């Protein structure tokens, strides 16, 4: 893969351009342009943080389930165990693993979301 410009730089460039034209847009389009810029910031964070978050989730879920696989497979397996009642909120390590995984996901989706005290 080429080194420069990186995908996150390209995405960033588009987001900056959208921000630059926002003030000239009618209200509805200005709102949607802000949403579009936010979309690109999610994409950028996923490019930068996604691989590491995925790898960490695989490690946590493999340990919890005693199985190996990719994130999709392990998530599906965990859902099956929760549905069947084999695992529940009292299962040792379950909530800690879920919390670590979702914390990584929030860092991509909404890094400023405040969840303390929820």
């Amino acid at each position, binding site marked *: 893969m080429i080194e420069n410009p990186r995908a996150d730089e390209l995405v960033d460039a588009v987001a900056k351009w959208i921000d630059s034209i926002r003030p000239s847009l009618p209200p*509805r389009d200005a709102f*949607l342009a802000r*949403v*579009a810029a*936010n*979309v690109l910031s*999610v994409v950028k964070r996923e490019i930068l943080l996604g691989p590491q978050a995925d790898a960490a989730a695989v490690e946590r879920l493999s340990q919890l389930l005693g199985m190996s696989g990719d994130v*999709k497979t392990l*998530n*599906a397996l*965990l*859902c099956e165990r*929760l*549905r069947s*009642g084999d695992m*529940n*909120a009292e299962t040792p390590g*379950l*909530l800690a693993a*879920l*919390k670590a995984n*979702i*914390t990584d*996901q*929030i860092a991509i*989706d*909404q890094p*400023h*979301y*405040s*969840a*303390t*005290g*929820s």
Partner: protein
Amino acid sequence: MEVDISEGLQALAPKLGFATVAEVQRLSAGASMETWAFVAEGPQGRREMILRRRPGPFDEEAARSTSLATEAALITAAQAAGAPVAPLVWLCQPEDGLGEAHITVRIAGETLGRKIVTDPRFEAIRPELAGQCGRILAQIHSIPPGTIPLKSADAIGELDRYETLYRSFGTERPILELAFQHLRKHAPEPMPEVLLHGDFRNGNLIINETDGVAAVLDWELSHLGDPAEDLSWLCVNSWRFGVSSKPVGGFGDYQDLLDGYAAASGIEIPLSRVRYWQALGSLKWGVMCLLMYSSYASGVTTSVERPMIGRRVSETEIDLVNLLEAGL
């Protein structure tokens, strides 16, 4: 059928007790509901009003939400019960040519949740709001359902409904899965049903510096159910607008809300019941975010908003994990 709103309102002015209408402007661009602001003028002066209308057809039997005629009845009943509302001026009739619609007084104040929790001009009133919300909910819950046609929903019914929706998306989200199982197992003993607002949260309240809550808006999700459902929806972290340290709407504390409710209703609702329904609220909001994303994924809508809201599911998941960690 395209309706000329200005023309329709002009023709309606005498029935509203005014000579003319002016300054007609569209406020929201919602797909299912339109909101218009206008000013009615006559010898007695001018009055700011709001027209709410449904541009498309509506099947009250099948729908989750109420008709605008039912909403009008709820507003009037809530006013009679002492709750602050934007009073009903006119329920449109077929001959008015505006379709399914009603007109209310326009109440001055702020509805943007983010401003309500951060703007310095609300600093003095903010500590009063949680208790006031508790008292207002007690007033709303005291409304005799009487002739208002409303559906019922309890915790298990809500879980069934949202789990069916969730399953239809074919997605695997362990935290939502865990929440469904946990909330099913720990549903509280049912309480006598009351009339609920159904969407009582920061964002649907008009707040001003002197009155605090000046009006409760958006009655279309009203139904009969557990009083804790209304108390808790206001506490769901997604409606705290970044001030998560203030569990009630981002402006207040649980105890003030519950004390206000108990003082006005004589009914003590335990915090644990509110926390249970708060988790159910987060779960419902998570599934709703998935639903909005699915309308994009299936090609029904193309707006960039819809896929983006799909990334708000994770906020409900972190809130659910926190609630489960705390034992709800």
